[in-house]
């Protein structure tokens, strides 16, 4: 009986306490930079597309909402011909970002993506691609990888020794 009265009194005292609600549209909560929200495709510091169309994100995606088609430019550099994310299926798990070997695909702290038509939630490459390097400034996959593309031969990447001339090893 006493405990009931005490409960009533304690609950009544809550009338004078601060309310926890965040009045959302007027008052935006802080989201940390690593919050998993709207997905973007980033560029390397030289302005080239980072994505090498390796399909790893599409494979990692548990709901199979990424679809893309690889192609190559005349210098041998791979890039996606189209890159499409269906955000009406995406569960924002971040697996695509984990899988990506080039830091191309990244999740951002933006979540206000409401649309009146479901079709508008399918984002094409133009919608996804942004101008900067996102969370990984300074990283350029083609500069560190040993793959040969136009303008960069074998052995010219950062921290890479020039290839050994096998013939010079002959006794």
């Amino acid at each position, binding site marked *: 009986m006493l405990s*009931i009265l005490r*409960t*009533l009194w304690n*609950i009544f005292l809550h009338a004078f306490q601060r309310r*926890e609600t965040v009045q959302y549209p007027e008052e935006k909560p802080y989201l940390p930079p690593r919050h998993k929200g709207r997905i973007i495709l980033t560029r390397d510091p030289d302005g080239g597309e980072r994505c090498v169309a390796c399909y790893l994100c599409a494979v990692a995606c548990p709901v199979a909402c990424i679809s893309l088609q690889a192609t190559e430019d005349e210098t041998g550099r791979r890039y996606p011909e189209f890159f499409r994310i269906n955000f009406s299926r995406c569960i924002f798990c971040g697996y695509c970002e984990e899988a990506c070997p080039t830091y191309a695909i990244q999740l951002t702290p933006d979540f206000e993506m409401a649309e009146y038509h479901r079709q508008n939630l399918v984002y094409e490459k133009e919608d996804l691609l942004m101008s900067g390097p996102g969370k990984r400034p300074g990283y350029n996959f083609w500069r560190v990888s040993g793959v040969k593309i136009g303008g960069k031969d074998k052995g010219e990447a950062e921290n890479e020794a020039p290839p050994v001339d096998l013939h010079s090893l002959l006794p």
Partner: protein
Amino acid sequence: MNPIVKSLIILFLVIFIPLNVAAGLIWLERRLLALWQDRYGPNRVGPFGLLQVLADMIKIFFKEDWIPPFADKPVFVIAPAVIMVTVLMSYTVVPWAPGATVADMNIGLLFFLAMSSLGVYSIVLAGWASASKYSLLGGLRASAQMLSYEVFMGLSLMGTVLLAGSFRLSDIVAAQRHMWFVIPQFLGFILFLIAGLAETRRLPFDLPEAESELVAGFHSEYSGMKFGMFFVGEYLGVILISAMITVLFFGGWQGPWLPPIVWFVVKTLFFICLFILLRAALPRPRFDQLMSWGWKIMLPLALLNLLVTGAVVLAARP
């Protein structure tokens, strides 16, 4: 003024005001619950969210009025009306202010008790006619709960009747000119408060609907305005019990300085808020606990209260 016109005006007001206040209570309850749970509650539609009720009403009127094919149709339709009618009938005897009552019956209190007992038919019939097991369980619980709480609800009020010497509610209010009955009848007040909670099926005594156990209890199968009628009936019941507590234990319209009707409204509002606080604070008891409290604690206490009051009244008589 012509007495017929006067009665008609009072009649209109007594139907019109409680129905609107009952709708407003939905807003009040949500805001107060939110206040006590450190939230805001509805605050978007209109000033302070006051128009939320209106929006909800418009929505509920446009909902599909669905009667399940397996239900017992006539009974299913009548059940929500029963609760509204019985509760509104009880309002006829409530003395709002001196002379402002629809029917100042000499058996007013008995009429109130009778009507509130009839209200349980609505719940039981709704549970039965829905032909679904959750509804039926809710209906069964309601009947058991009402049976056990009805008994001491009546008994707890007999103390005030003994003190006032009348079943007429205006006489009971008049008899409290010098002392509110809550002082000599404190036990009776507590018992009536508990019984009133059980009677209106409010938390913590909402076992007939018990969302966490029975979906929505007796009104699981209801939708649209039929569902709304149960809700309005419940809120009407809350207002009624608060008004009756005011009349029977807190001197009704009596109070200094302010006009009588203001006193009545203020006191009633206080008890409505108390009802909401109880809902915010207390958990729902188990069903067997509910029953055993009713029969093993409340009923003996009510009888004891009646006995002692009767003895005192008898001894004090010259």
